[in-house]
């Protein structure tokens, strides 16, 4: 998505920030840290940076050099977005946030959108987070993702092409692989036993 936005022909400047939620990093991925990670990608205009630097200097003088609180972080992000022409925020795997952080994150994003209606947010996640997303963003644009046969074929072709043990492959087997696997996977629930695990991992 990020590459697609970068590459599309457009007259106007855009700024993109991204974040990948990761269940292995849940404790560190607090809402404040996530918003902070987005903010630092959007600190491209001097005036906001000055404010952030001031807050940093102030915090250093306080006990423990404490970090910003969530409302302050959100406010700074709003400020940063206001200085930019158009901002895209892409967040992957929302389901990997703990529920408390997810809710805080969505509420924070809602506040930010209210201030910057031109901003666009792209999020992905497993189906179970849909309810929370539609609760916070009643009219969000929703697209179900399923593996497409031609994508799988393309992927398999690439893997076969790059197979270092190509002598073990015959034309017949190759043709079988390229027809059977895409047919079986597309439209079916991935995760069933027929899908090779390695394929699942890489596609994900």
């Amino acid at each position, binding site marked *: *998505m*990020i*590459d*697609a936005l*970068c590459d599309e022909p*457009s007259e106007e*400047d*855009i*700024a993109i920030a*991204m974040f*990948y939620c*990761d269940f292995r*990093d849940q404790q*560190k991925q607090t809402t*404040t840290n*996530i918003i*902070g*990670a987005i*903010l*630092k*990608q*959007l*600190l491209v*205009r*001097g005036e906001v*940076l000055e404010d*952030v*630097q001031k807050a940093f200097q102030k915090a250093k003088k306080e006990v423990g050099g404490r970090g910003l609180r969530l409302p302050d972080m959100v406010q700074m992000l709003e400020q940063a977005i206001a200085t*930019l022409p158009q901002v895209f925020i892409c967040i*992957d*795997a929302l389901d990997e946030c703990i529920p408390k952080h997810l809710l805080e994150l969505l509420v924070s994003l809602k506040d930010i959108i*209210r201030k910057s*209606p031109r*901003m*666009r*947010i*792209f*999020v*992905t*996640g*497993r189906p179970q*987070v*849909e309810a929370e997303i539609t609760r916070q*963003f*009643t*009219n*969000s*644009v929703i*697209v*179900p*993702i399923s*593996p497409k046969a031609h*994508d799988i074929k*393309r*992927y398999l072709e690439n893997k076969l092409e790059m197979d270092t043990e190509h002598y073990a492959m015959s034309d017949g087997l190759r043709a079988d692989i390229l027809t059977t696997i895409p047919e079986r996977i597309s439209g079916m629930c*991935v*995760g069933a036993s027929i899908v090779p695990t390695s394929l699942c991992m*890489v*596609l*994900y």
Partner: protein
Amino acid sequence: MDHAAYSSSTSFGNRNVNCNNVTNNHKIVNVNKVIADENPGVVQWLSPLDPRGRHQDVRTNRLDGVGNWLLETKEFGEWRSGEGGADRAVLFCYGDPGVGKTYLR
């Protein structure tokens, strides 16, 4: 990605900044242009998290063309155009594990 991997991407990530936005034009305002890189203390204080390492992994493993169908949908077009304003600001793509959400182009 574990903590070690994250912190290593933090330490060398700044040098790779512009790789994240390899484009042949100048319309991209960021990601993390020099301004942030000249202020490592501030950037670290803002958040210990640095998604750029993970992003680079995804870019490396992504196969060109896969997931392009999304860009052709009317939903994507509507969202991208911004016509719906704040009301339609969020595009949510959902799917079970392994369907390719992360690797949508």
